[in-house]
C-alpha cells in the first residue's frame, strides 16, 4: 500500500492524465431522476440543493453529461458551454482569452477534449438576488472530467454563483480539470463561492482567471474541508479598470494524506484598484501551500494579503508564500502571515471561563475558520460549521 501511495504522489502531469478514463467514455445519467437519494444528499452538503426553491437556477454536470440546466430568470443566460459555443460563434471573444491553452497538459487536454462546462451570462443591469448553483459531479471511479466554464457579468449586473464540486459518495478516485474564465464588466459585481467536497484519491486541477473592468467587483470564496489527494489551484484576477475590486477568501482544511497547493493572485493594472486575499488554513496532518501574490502596476492602488495557518497535528505542513510585487512607487501593499499551533494562552483564557480544553480548542478553531462569507445559504453555512466540528473530533 505504501509503495502504491508513493508512486501515486509522484505521478507526473502526463501520467496523471493517462491514469484516468476520459469522462466522455463513461455513461452519464440522462436526468435528475436517475440520481440516488444519497447522491442528492451529498450534493446538498456541497452547497448544491437541487430541491431548493431559493436558487435561481441549476446547472448539474455528471461526468460529461448535462443532467440539469435550467434558469428561471430572463436576465440570466445559462447554457452548457458546448451549446453556447455553437450559438455564439465559438465564444471566441471570451474562450481562452484569459488563460493560455498551452499553459500545461491540463489546459491542452481540455482544449482538445472538452467534456462540457457551463456558460453563464448576467445581462446588463440585471441584479440577481438568489444564487445560481452549478455542480460538477464525478459519478464513476477513475474518471477524468474536463470542464471549461465561462461566466460573464455584463455592465452593471450583479450575480452570485455557488459551485459545488464533488464525487459520488462511494467513489474514491478521479481527476477533475476545470478551466474557468470570468468577465466582470463595468460596474458589475460577481460573487463566486466554490465548495470542494472530494474523495481521498481525487486529483483536482482548476485553472481560473478573472478580468474585472472599471468599477467592477469580483468576490471569491473557496472552501475545502474534506479529504482529497491533491489540489492545485491558483486563480489570477486582473483588475483592468479604474476602481475595480477583487477579494479572495479561502478556508482550507487538510486532513492527513491530502496535499493542497492553493492560492490567489491579483494583478492591479489600473489606478485606484483594490485587492484583498485572505486565507485560513488548517493542517490535520496534510500539506497546504498557501500562496498569495499581489502585483501592483498602477498608482494609488491598495492591496492586502493575509495567510493564517494552524497546525493541529504533529505531522503535516503549512507553507505560506505571500508575495508582494510593486512596479510603480505610489502603491499601498501589505501582508500578514502567521503559522503555528493554537496559542496556549488562548486555550487557557477560555478554560479560565470554565470550558474544557477540548471545547476551548474547538471554539478557537471555529473562530479561526469563521471567515465571513456573504450570502452563503444557511444550510451550507451550518454544514461548514459541522464539518469543522467533525474535522476536530477526528483528531
Amino acid at each position, binding site marked *: 500500500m505504501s509503495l502504491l501511495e508513493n508512486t501515486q504522489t509522484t505521478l507526473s502531469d502526463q501520467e496523471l492524465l493517462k491514469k484516468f478514463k476520459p469522462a466522455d467514455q463513461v455513461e452519464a445519467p440522462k436526468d435528475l431522476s436517475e440520481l440516488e437519494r444519497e447522491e442528492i444528499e451529498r450534493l446538498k452538503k456541497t452547497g448544491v440543493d437541487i430541491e431548493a426553491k431559493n436558487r435561481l437556477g441549476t446547472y448539474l454536470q455528471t461526468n460529461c453529461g448535462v443532467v440539469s440546466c435550467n434558469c428561471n430568470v430572463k436576465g440570466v443566460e445559462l447554457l452548457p458551454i458546448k451549446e453556447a459555443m455553437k450559438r455564439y460563434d465559438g465564444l471566441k471573444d471570451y474562450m481562452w482569452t484569459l488563460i493560455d491553452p498551452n499553459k500545461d497538459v491540463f489546459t491542452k487536454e481540455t482544449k482538445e477534449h472538452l467534456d462540457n462546462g457551463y456558460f453563464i451570462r448576467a445581462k446588463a443591469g440585471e441584479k440577481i438576488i438568489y444564487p445560481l448553483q452549478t455542480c460538477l459531479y464525478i459519478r464513476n471511479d477513475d474518471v477524468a472530467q474536463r470542464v471549461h466554464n465561462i461566466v460573464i457579468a455584463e455592465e452593471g449586473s450583479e450575480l452570485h454563483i455557488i459551485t459545488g464540486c464533488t464525487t459520488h459518495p462511494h467513489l474514491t478516485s478521479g481527476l477533475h480539470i476545470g478551466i474557468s474564465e470570468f468577465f466582470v464588466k463595468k460596474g458589475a459585481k460577481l460573487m463566486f463561492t466554490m465548495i470542494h467536497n472530494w474523495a481521498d484519491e481525487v486529483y483536482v486541477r482548476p485553472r481560473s482567471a478573472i478580468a474585472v473592468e472599471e468599477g467592477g467587483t469580483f468576490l471569491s470564496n473557496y472552501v475545502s474541508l474534506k479529504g482529497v489527494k491533491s489540489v492545485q489551484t491558483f486563480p489570477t484576477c486582473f483588475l483592468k479598470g479604474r476602481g475595480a475590486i477583487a477579494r479572495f477568501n479561502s478556508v482550507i482544511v487538510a486532513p492527513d494524506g491530502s496535499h493542497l497547493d492553493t492560492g490567489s493572485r491579483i494583478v492591479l493594472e489600473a489606478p485606484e484598484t483594490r485587492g484583498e486575499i485572505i486565507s485560513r488554513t488548517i493542517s490535520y496532518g496534510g500539506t497546504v501551500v498557501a500562496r498569495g501574490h499581489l502585483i501592483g502596476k498602477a498608482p494609488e492602488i491598495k492591496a492586502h494579503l493575509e495567510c493564517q495557518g494552524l497546525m493541529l497535528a504533529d505531522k503535516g505542513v503549512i507553507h505560506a508564500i505571500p508575495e508582494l510585487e510593486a512596479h510603480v512607487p505610489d502603491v499601498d501593499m501589505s501582508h500578514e502571515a502567521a503559522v503555528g499551533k493554537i496559542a496556549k494562552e488562548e486555550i*487557557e483564557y477560555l478554560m479560565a471561563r470554565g470550558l474544557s480544553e477540548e471545547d476551548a480548542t474547538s471554539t478557537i478553531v471555529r*473562530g479561526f475558520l*469563521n471567515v465571513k462569507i456573504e450570502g452563503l445559504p444557511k444550510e451550507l453555512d451550518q454544514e461548514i460549521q459541522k464539518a469543522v466540528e467533525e474535522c476536530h473530533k477526528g483528531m
Partner: protein
Amino acid sequence: MLQIEDLWVDIHGKEVLRGIDLEIGTGETHCLFGRNGSGKTTLLMTIMGFEGYQVKHGKITFKGVDITNMPLNERAKLGLGLSFQRPPTLRGVKLRDMLKLCGNGSDYGVQLAVEYGFEAFLDREVNLGFSGGEIKKSELLQLLSQNPDLTLLDEPESGVDVENLNVIGDMIRRLLEKDKHRNRKKSGLIITHTGFILNYVTADKGHVMLDGKLVCHGNPIDIFEGIQKHGYEECAKCLF
C-alpha cells in the same frame, strides 16, 4: 472561602512566591499591594491554576476543597474567576458568543452589555482592537456572566480613563455583591497599584507583597496611605 498555607511557587525554575499564607472569608474583599515583579500576579495565576506556575510546597483550599493540583477549568467550575490584565485576542469569536460561553448558554451577560452601553462590542471579535478600558469592561462582563464566588482581579483600573472608572467600579461592586450588607456570598481579591479602585470598591483587608512574601496586613486604606507616604520600603521593615 479561600485558604492558602505556606505556598511556594516557581516559574521556569525561578522561585517567585516564598511562603504565602492568606485567608479570605466568605463575602470579604481583599486588596493586594506591591511593587511590579513582587509576585502579586503570580499569586493570582497560581490560585486560578495556570500552567507554568509550579507549586513547590503548600496548599490552596477553596470552599473546603484542596485545589492545589486541580485543572484550571475545574477551578472555574467550582467558582473561581479571574480578570486578565492582558487577555489574548480570540479571532472569529464574537463577544456575544463568549459571554454565552461564560454563562453556560445564558443571555445574562449579553443583557448586561446592553445595560452598560457596551452592545456595539457584542458582534466584535473578543479583544480585537479593544482599548484598555474596553478590555476591562469585556473582562468584567465575562465574569458577571460566569458568576464566580471568588473573583481575582488584576489591576482592574489600569488603562481606564476617569470617566469609565465609575462603570468599572459599578461592575466590580455588582460582581462582589457590595449592595448586600448581610449574607454576602461573593468574595474578591484585587491587585491594585494605584489604589484608585478603593474609591469605588470597599475592601475589608489589605496585604502588601514584597519579594514573594506577604509582609503586612491590615486596613487597606491605612496600608495604601502608608505606602503613599513612606513607600514600600517602610513595609519591608515589618519583615524584621
